């Protein structure tokens, strides 16, 4: 089974063009959808999750026409929205069991077992009798994960799932996902490069509604191997470096600035070769202001992205 998205475009009534001819083929396994806030990730997720219709384009999940046979999609879908709430006056166990019934798990015994297993998996078993309204953000997020896994979904869509999780929870969740994702399609939408780097076998980078780049993360990293260079400079030197080089990223370190630049050759001996990672791929891709998606070629450009630490803060505003 694979999910194929063909030439999907969407313009909101306020004129924002959220998707612009997106074409993607997503096989089983973990698929990372990477992009900055407002890039159209959430719109794409919601489109696949039958929550909204595109203006143009088609999407098929195996034989199912996603846009027309919504109910068929919903029967095999697990969905964790980017931002969600719950009925506040209901306990975790009650609501999960309720959702299980709505997901077609009609056998009461089965329902009881799956609810218990999921609550244990996401570490909510001890708080199962507490009202959901009293849950903190991370706890609530774990509940969201549990409900997305109900009913053995064939297509799991998780939109910014690690936001709000602490590092331990995050890695436990990613493990859980990749365990389940062996045989089903899991689409992980995120702006955190590490999420994708850690668990995704395939990915796409999206910006301004367009897919800038697709493929396997490792191949993308390999493509820039030997072309990324680093150097520690003074902060006031930065403008000069930016003018002369293609700076991918800068990072403050002990009052000094570490710059990564992208160049086919070592710019000068003061630069050391840097081992490229997915972040470099991401920033290089994003820094292209325009151009067609291309799996392996890399385009120099002037813009760059600054982060202060590996993962940038804040969350998407694609609502």
């Amino acid at each position, binding site marked *: 089974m694979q999910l194929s998205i063909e030439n999907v475009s969407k313009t*909101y*009534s306020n004129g924002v063009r959220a998707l612009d001819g997106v074409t993607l083929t997503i096989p089983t396994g973990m698929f990372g959808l990477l992009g900055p806030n407002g890039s159209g990730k959430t719109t794409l997720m*919601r489109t696949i*999750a*039958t*929550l*909204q*219709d595109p203006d143009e384009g088609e999407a098929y999940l195996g034989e199912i026409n996603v846009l027309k046979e919504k*109910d068929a999609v*919903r*029967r095999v*879908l697990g*969905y*964790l*929205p980017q*931002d*969600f*709430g*719950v*009925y506040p*006056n*209901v306990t975790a166990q009650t*609501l999960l069991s*309720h*959702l*299980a*019934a*709505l*997901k*077609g*798990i*009609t056998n009461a015994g*089965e*329902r009881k*077992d*799956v609810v218990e*297993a*999921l*609550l*244990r*998996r996401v*570490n909510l*078993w*001890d*708080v199962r009798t*507490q009202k959901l*309204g*009293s*849950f*903190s953000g*991370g*706890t609530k997020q774990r509940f*969201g994960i549990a409900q997305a*896994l*109900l*009913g*053995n979904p064939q297509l799991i869509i998780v939109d910014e799932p690690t936001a709000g999780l*602490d590092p331990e929870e995050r890695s436990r969740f990613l493990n859980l996902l990749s365990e*389940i994702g062996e045989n089903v399609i899991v689409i992980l939408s995120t702006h955190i490069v590490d999420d994708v780097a850690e668990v995704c076998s395939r990915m796409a980078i999206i910006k301004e509604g367009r897919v800038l780049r697709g493929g396997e993360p490792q191949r993308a990293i390999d493509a820039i191997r030997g072309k990324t260079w680093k150097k520690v400079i003074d902060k006031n030197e930065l403008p000069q470096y930016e003018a002369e080089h293609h700076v991918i990223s800068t990072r403050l370190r002990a009052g000094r600035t570490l710059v990564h630049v992208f160049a086919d050759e070592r710019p000068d001996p003061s630069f050391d070769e840097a081992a490229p990672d997915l972040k470099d791929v991401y920033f290089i891709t994003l820094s292209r202001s325009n151009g067609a998606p291309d799996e392996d070629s890399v385009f120099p450009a002037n813009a760059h992205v600054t982060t202060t630490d590996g993962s940038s803060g804040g969350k998407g505003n694609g*609502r």
Partner: protein
Amino acid sequence: MFRDVLRFELHYLFRRPAVYVGLVLFFLFGFMAIASDTFQSGRFLTATARNSPYDIVRLLASISVAGLVLIAGFVATAVNRDRELGVHELFFATPVSKSAYLGGRFAGSLIATFLAVSAAAAAMALASAMPFLDQERLVAFDAVPYVYALGVFVLPNLLLAGAILFSVATLTRRVLFAYVALVAMIALWIIARRFMGDIDSRWLGSIIDPFGIMSFRYATRYWTVAERNTALVPLSGSFILNRVLWTSVGVGFLVFTWTRFRMTVVETVSRLGRRGGAAGDDPGEAGRAQPVPMTTPIFTARTWFLQWAKQTRIEIGGVLTSVPFMVMLLLANVMLVTGALSEVAGTRSYPLTRIMVSEITGTFELFLVLVLLIYAGQLVWRERAAGMHEIHSVLPVPDWVPVAAKLSALAAVSVVMLAVAALATIAIQLAGGHVDLEPGVYLRGLFVVGNAHWLLIAALAIAVQAFTPKKIVGFFVVLAVLETLEWFPEIGLGHHLNLYSSTPEVVYSDMNGFGHFVRPIAWFSVYWGFLAAALLVVATLFWVRTTDPAPRGRWREARRRLTRARMAALAVALVGFVATGAWIFYNTNVLNPYLPEKEISRLQAATEERYKQYEGLPQPHVTDIALYVDIYPEERRVEVRGDLRLVNKTDAPIEELHVHTEPVLEWDFPSLAGETVVLDDTEVGFRIYRLAEPLLPGEALNVAYTMSDVNDGFVNHDSNTKVVENGTFFSNFHCVPHFGYAVDTEIEDPTVRRRHGLPPRDRMAAVDDPVARMSAFDVDSDWITYEATISTSEDQIAVTAGYLEREWSEDGRRHFRYRMDRPIQKFFPIVSGRYEVARDSWNDVAIEIFHHPRHAYNVGRMIESVQKSLDYFTANFSPYQHRQVRILEFPRYRTFAQSFPTTIPYSEDAHFVGDVRDPENLDMVFYITAHEVAHQWWAHQVVAARVQGSTFIEESLAQYSALMVMEKEFGRDYMKRFLEHELDRYLLGRGGERHEEMPLVLVEDQGYIHYRKGSLAMYALRDYIGEEAVNAALRAYIDEVAFQEPPYTNSLELLSHLREATPERYRYLIEDLFETITLYDNRVEEATVEETGDGRYRVRLAIDSRKLRADGKGVETEIPHADWIEVGVYGEETDDAVDERPLYLEKHRLASGNSEIEIVVDEKPARAGIDPRHLLIDREPGDNVKPVSG
């Protein structure tokens, strides 16, 4: 700083359309209140000016309550708005002080509301100047009442409501709680209104009404038309107490809020939540590696059912556990219990289940609508409000499941509310020792007959919420739809086919159950059910399951969802809607005439225009009536054959016979088939026959006729409740044709007459009008002979006036033959029902009570009253002319008792179910029975002419007679309590007068005069001149006029007997009590006591006495007097409060103004005063007696 916040708030509000919408609405509201008859409703019938100061103040006070809607919208949200928009943190970070912030916000929103509501005052002033209004009903413009009303009612009420709502919303941070506070205030207001019904709790009601409307009503309760047109309530007494009290409450709330409010941001995550998180952070190792078991989702019809059931359950839980719901349910029950208790106390009835059910439906109407409307919004928007809609929308659930679940949940909520209410009233019943709970009546009354209506409202609300962009918009759209429907009758769309969710009114009767009301209700419910189903299908198509609810996408999605099955469902619903509508139309408009109120008055006007010309045209008089009546109760059909003998009692030949009949019935005159029909107006029921041979003076004509009263199918409104399955009751007016123009069919109300271009009409002929004095009960007959043979179904008993001569069964039907052994006036009932009969006797008079088997409560008391009445009347007035007295119960569709010769039908509600066990309560059963028995003398022996004062003879004397029987039974102290109520009801009645108040001797069928003032005047006369003197005069009067042929007696003849019996020194009473409207303002200003030294006590009284004459509008003029007025001194009240023994009670001759009186009594006095027993009419009876001070 305050000014900045205030300016900001005003600026914000005045940029929003809501203020202007409110302004326009209140302007329209005010304008219509004066200019529209609909708004004026019952009021336009009275003689008070449309724009009287009384009405200006009253209307603006009511409108100020409507202003609460704006308060809820603006004031309650003033602070919460910041929080919702998330800008409160910004505000709190600025140096604005708490006082400035709260004060500015509150003042700004209050000012905006006040301005919007004040538009009503401007509109009322403008409307008063409209040239199209009836100028006779207007007074000149005066700004004072407007300013008064704005200052005394509008501003304080808005301030109070604003303060409470602002405080609740601000402190709880939830606007919903503010709405609950609003409902609580309205509940208090309604409870206060309940208290106004009872003379003893009125004062309390006038205090506890937060809006002061009841204190206004209390202060103006005895106002006459003249006062209403000129006066304002003085700021004193309970009125000012109410205003000050509630304004202080409002200020108190503001102060409390100010002290409790913190300009800080409160973290909303509860402690519980953090603990929950902590527990989760410490995972149980055991569960970590457990694999998630495989499940097998199944999607069949069973799944859909499960999904629906599960979703319904969680929705119900959502409503039932929400605090506002619980508060409203509690409020509703508090109101229900107070209401039901005061209803039981007020009517002094047994707490019957039907009374409880009608209390529940009455009280819960408002709350059910509110709960359904509010929670339709809450449920439809529940997932979106919780942020759960994305998860919920992508569940593999058919589109109809959430729609159906939310509707089912609302239905369940309404059932829960009504069930809780039923438990509350069952508790009342059990507490009252009433164990006959009639669960079937609860079940059908609450959940079968009434519940379709709530389900339909819920369906509409859900469908509307599915389309509207916001919860609050949906709420107001539904409210607007329901309110608009209320107006439909005014624009000629009053048919229930036009009024969503409405059905013809249903009246439950213990005797007749739900009777014939069930069928129309069932059909209308099905009809509206189909429309609701169609709405719900459409709602399903457009149900939001998307994060991008732009119209274009929703239409596309709706087309996609419109499957064959749904298209079929929609088609079935619409076809069903049209088909049942057609069937209903066939029943209400084809099988039966559809007669809205305006059509009825049009027909009345047409009758008058066409045939009034024949009024007074000589016609033969009916002298003998023989009826053959076949009643088919189960079909609600009556067939009448009648043989009438008509005699020309005039001295000229009669050439034309005019027959005036009820047009909805089928009439035929086979014996006149040979005569020429000059005119046959079937529209209004008027025929003219030209007699081939004129009827010569003294000659007789036999007329045979048939009449069918057939009730096929069902009607839209005003169903025939005279012919029903159990408890048929109609009179001669229904089954005997009228010869000549029947003047009684004319429109009485002057405003309606003017609207139809009819000339003004006298309410009654002048007391000495010689033509009018020729007729009494009816113009076409005098004394008649009467016999009737009536058949009815096997299980029923049929009764009419007269003696039962024969009873037999034939063809499975029961037949009864009755004959009256002496002439009676043409006035008899025909009754049939499944009766139990209680029999007793008095001398040779048979007493029979025909009653519903379950209503045996007071049958014994009725028999006693009949016996004691016969005792008194035969001993003091004249012999009883008949050999039987029968009382018959009929269903409560009509609520009176009526005394026909020998036969007295009583409504179920007229104390058949009254609870007279408590001697503290007035025994209404005993009293009403005595009154009706007295009519056998005053109406059937002494027959009054149809002129002014006729009801003084018939009703006031029946009241007097009943009072005397009661006095013998209960003693004189008891009468004081009875007369207090009579005085209250007389004084209350004066303000509702439509034309003008008449003196008793010229009373024009005005109930508050001939019953209430009649009791007071006759009892006062009896007290001054003595029982025997009054009775001797009445005996002499009966001797003179009983059973007389026309001309019939008038009130002047009665009065001359009473005058003769009155000694010279009390002669002025005849003028005061009967010939004029005379009131006293008696008051004791000081009462002191000192011991005389020989163990006795000297009481000194300073008294002020004034005597007033009022004209027909209530304008009073003081006249000097030197009248005999009672002065009394009373001892300490004993436990036995009923027996109030005076230490001194004598009539003193007192001059107008101040007097000093000294009285020496033997025992220690406690209270003393002037006219302590309220023999004289006094508008302030409360100041007549005072405790004496040492």
